[in-house]
């Protein structure tokens, strides 16, 4: 791991900048005063416990939910997203946690949904080729792109959702737990892809519960806790520090567990000596 320090700022300009974003669902404050910056060519990992508000933040950025208050700046201009179309038009692509695929449509139709080529006489051949190209880039194992999504496994569906997000050459891509259903090789493939996308100068927001994956690709780690910012960290931060930011306590199940294993290990080395 390279020695990253807080002083090292990412090279690219700011793609996205959020200030004071709040989102209320009735009485529930899912997000409170969220600040977030994403730069071009940067991978920001968004971590937090279940229910911390990560998916809600992603949906606000995707135009699926409208923020209750707060400002959003994209590419230097203040923007207000009134619907998913606004976000797509700006160049914000999203892989949702629930994937949001149409099970009754085939893979090609899902990848091109809402962006079909030749609206009055669908260009199926070109769409199919582009679909295969995108899927091959992800080293996907999809038996046929002409089968309905319902016939695919969870991992294959996730790959289709990721392929779809890459279709439009976005400026910012958000992946909500993209590797949750993936096998070892596919996870590595997605992490490689995230790096490739970053190297092309895109901003990436990635949500994951796997700290190993997060450390492997993230330039910055933003922690959410109970809908609020709870610190910004860098990949060289110790696991314990991250975990206590996520759970909100120095003394928690995770650190107790790792402390116990550490002690056991020290014990065995002493016995050997």
């Amino acid at each position, binding site marked *: 791991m390279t020695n990253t320090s807080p002083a090292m700022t990412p090279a690219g300009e700011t793609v996205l900048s959020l200030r004071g974003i709040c989102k209320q669902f009735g009485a529930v404050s899912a997000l409170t005063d969220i600040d977030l910056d994403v730069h071009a060519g940067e991978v920001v990992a968004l971590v937090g416990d279940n229910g911390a508000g990560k998916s809600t933040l992603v949906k606000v950025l*995707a135009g*699926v939910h409208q923020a209750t208050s707060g400002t959003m700046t994209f590419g230097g201009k203040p923007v207000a997203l009134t*619907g*998913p*179309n606004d976000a*797509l*038009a700006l160049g914000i692509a*999203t892989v*949702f946690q629930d994937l*949001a*695929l*149409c*099970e*009754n*449509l085939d893979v090609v*139709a899902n990848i091109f*949904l*809402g*962006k*079909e080529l030749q*609206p*009055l*006489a*669908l260009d*199926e*051949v*070109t769409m*199919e*080729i582009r679909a*295969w190209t995108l899927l*091959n880039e992800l080293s996907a*194992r*999809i*038996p*046929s*792109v002409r*089968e*309905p999504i*319902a*016939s*695919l496994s969870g991992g294959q569906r996730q790959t289709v959702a990721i392929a779809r997000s890459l279709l439009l050459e976005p400026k910012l891509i958000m992946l909500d737990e993209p590797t949750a259903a993936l096998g070892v090789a596919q996870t590595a493939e997605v992490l490689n892809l995230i790096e490739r996308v970053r190297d092309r100068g895109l901003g990436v927001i990635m949500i994951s519960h796997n700290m190993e994956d997060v450390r492997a690709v993230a330039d910055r780690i933003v922690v959410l806790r109970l809908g609020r910012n709870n610190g910004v960290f860098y990949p060289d931060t110790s696991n314990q520090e991250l975990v206590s930011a996520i759970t909100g306590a120095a003394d928690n199940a995770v650190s107790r567990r790792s402390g116990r294993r550490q002690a056991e290990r020290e014990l065995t080395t002493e016995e050997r000596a």
Partner: protein
Amino acid sequence: MTSDINTKPAAPLLDRADTRVRHDAGISGAIRGFLDRVRSGDLGSLPVVVGLAIIWTVFQSLNPVFLSSNNLVNLLFDSSTVGVIALGIVCILMVGEIDLSVGSVSGFASAMVGVLWVNAGWPVGVAILAALAVGAIFGLLYAALFNRLGMPSFVSTLAGLLAVLGLQLYVLGSSGSINLPYGSAVVNLGQTLVMPHAVAYALAAIAGIAVLVSGLRTAARRRAAGLTPQSMAGLVARALILTVVLEIVIFYLNGDRGVPWMFGLFVGLVVAMDYALTRTKWGRSMTAVGGNREAARRSGINVRFIYMSAFALCSTLAALGGVMSAARLASASQQAGTGDVNLNAIAAAVIGGTSLFGGRGNAYSALLGIIVIQSIASGLTLLDLSSSLRYMITGGVLAVAVIVDSLARRSRVSHGRA
């Protein structure tokens, strides 16, 4: 296969890289693929074709007039009117909603044509356009209630059923019935006009050629792009079978009067709707909204517009069906659009294979379904059975169709084809 038998294929085709998948080639492959699909609950038009064969066999054995050219030509005349309404139902079922007022809307449209054309002396074309426009307005109203107020279409159209029937009675006034002039073009279309025999044969040939040419063009494009083209034998077989079957049917119908122009109009609408549903972005969006509304919204589809177009199209086609049935009966009456019209239209769409659960169906189901419904009606009429029995049997057939739909859906879910 091409001539490069000696040269080893360097890289597999873009879509043939996965070795776990069996790729069916040729005619035997096509048959095997078809059986696989049926077993997994992707029944398509199979139940309706089997059902039709049974119905025709039974009625023909009970009354030999049933399959006579003359009776079949009448059957096509009668099918066209409710068939057009069923086509609208296919549209609305695609997005997973329902319109229960199509019967009333069709009745009101026929009343409007009667009042505007015969009583008020408007040109017939303008009267018909006005009726269609009013039909579209009903659809837009349902869409507004659905999109803006979240009113379930089941409720709004049930309210519409009664309200529009009231309007129909109101505009017909005390007379209750308006006769349309015999000998006018509209009534002729509904009662006598048939295609010249040569034209009918030519249209059937054109259909076959169109299937063949568009298939060949797609295959050529796919081959050029490095994708597996469709099997040539299968394509030629399909085009040939289609042409031969159509020509035989037309030959048989030409033994009597021939193919009604009104039925030609209906089939033309079916073909256009099939194109719109399967080959345009709009149709793709309709299917997507019916399958997963939220996913469609997140893809940037204007979901409200899609619902609006579905409701408006359904009501407009219902109005057109009403105008056609006024032409068929040469009258606009208080009874138009009442009784079993509603249920027949919905039953036709479902029997033809369009799912009540949304996101699955095709335009041809209106055509197949209405022929089943009309065959039952015609067969029972020939047997001199009362309408009480006809209602019971049609209701039973609809129930069977919905059961098949539900079971097939369950099977699709367990076979990963939902």
